[in-house]
């Protein structure tokens, strides 16, 4: 059944590769233009739950990889679809998927904050977790956390006991 689904997807959508791993995981790699169409297609195929949106910084390829994981509310359908797209690391931009899956909102906000990806059409890209502003978004690979925290926190002096 999973194989049929995969062949159908590959036939319907161009520029798409995919493979099935054991334990019911279907990986699909695609381009960012057809993400909304693909997500809508899956939603109609009863993969109606967006488990999460994630992001991986592939610094060697100079790309950011956005990952959508879709599962189903059906009780007899353990298949998870892992949808991967690569976007440019220098000008990361992507259409929001909130019209399709409403619970993508905080995930996109988080990725905007931690990876610096702009989601076009997102209603509130305000800071979610962070208090300070960072030059490089902190979850990117070129952000050196240890150096940063050392510089920031160790430069604060102890309040001495002397008068």
């Amino acid at each position, binding site marked *: 059944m999973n194989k049929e689904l995969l062949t159908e997807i590959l036939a319907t959508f161009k520029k798409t590769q995919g493979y099935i791993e054991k334990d019911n995981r279907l990986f699909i790699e695609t381009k960012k233009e057809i993400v909304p169409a693909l997500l809508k297609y899956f939603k109609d195929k009863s993969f109606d739950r967006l488990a999460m949106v994630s992001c991986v910084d592939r610094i060697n390829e100079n790309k950011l990889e956005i990952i959508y994981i879709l599962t189903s509310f059906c009780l007899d359908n353990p298949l998870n679809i892992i949808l991967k797209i690569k976007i440019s690391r220098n000008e990361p931009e992507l259409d929001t998927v909130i019209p399709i899956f409403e619970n993508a909102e905080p995930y996109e906000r988080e990725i905007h904050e931690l990876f610096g990806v702009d989601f076009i059409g997102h209603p509130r890209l305000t800071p979610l977790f962070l*208090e*300070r502003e960072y030059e490089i978004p902190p979850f990117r690979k070129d952000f050196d956390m240890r150096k940063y925290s050392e510089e920031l926190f160790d430069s*604060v002096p102890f309040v001495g006991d002397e008068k």
Partner: protein
Amino acid sequence: MDRNKISKWLKGPAKMGHKYSLSAIYFCTGCGIIEVPPVITARWDAERFGVIPVASPRQANLFLITGYVSLKTLKAIIRTYEQMPDPKYVVGFGSCPINGGMYWDSYNTIKHLDKYIPVDGWIAGCMPRPEAIFIGVTHLWTLIDKDMAKGYVKYREKYESYRKNQEQILGKLEWKPLYPIRRRK
């Protein structure tokens, strides 16, 4: 009540009042919070030591910092601390506020809490067991008895340095200074 205690009550009732009535506010600042509910409920019952949680910082005199402090929480902690009436005691809870603990290299948690507000006592451990919390409380009693829990006095005296440290981490603070700041030339 033994004679010693009675004479202490007669000598300094206010001090004894502070000692045996510790109204705690606890921020759920981190993992440490998970041991606070057992401590205040049936199994360990901190109320027999006079420790009772209250809802508003205005009514509290014991501030439990229960774990690592992220930058956003630090702001709230400073505000809460400044709202508490004197005398007030702060107890750092767990390894994280002492020196960063497990999160020593995180970009969002501070390492030494006592750089930003004065801390009267530490309870080490990740996480401290309920017994350790009680030892912390009795230790705080000793400190109060010997007039050594004077963090709030230090805060008043060194307010400029504390405020400077706070602003170095958090940027410009949007509330007015608690004590007047003398500008040095």
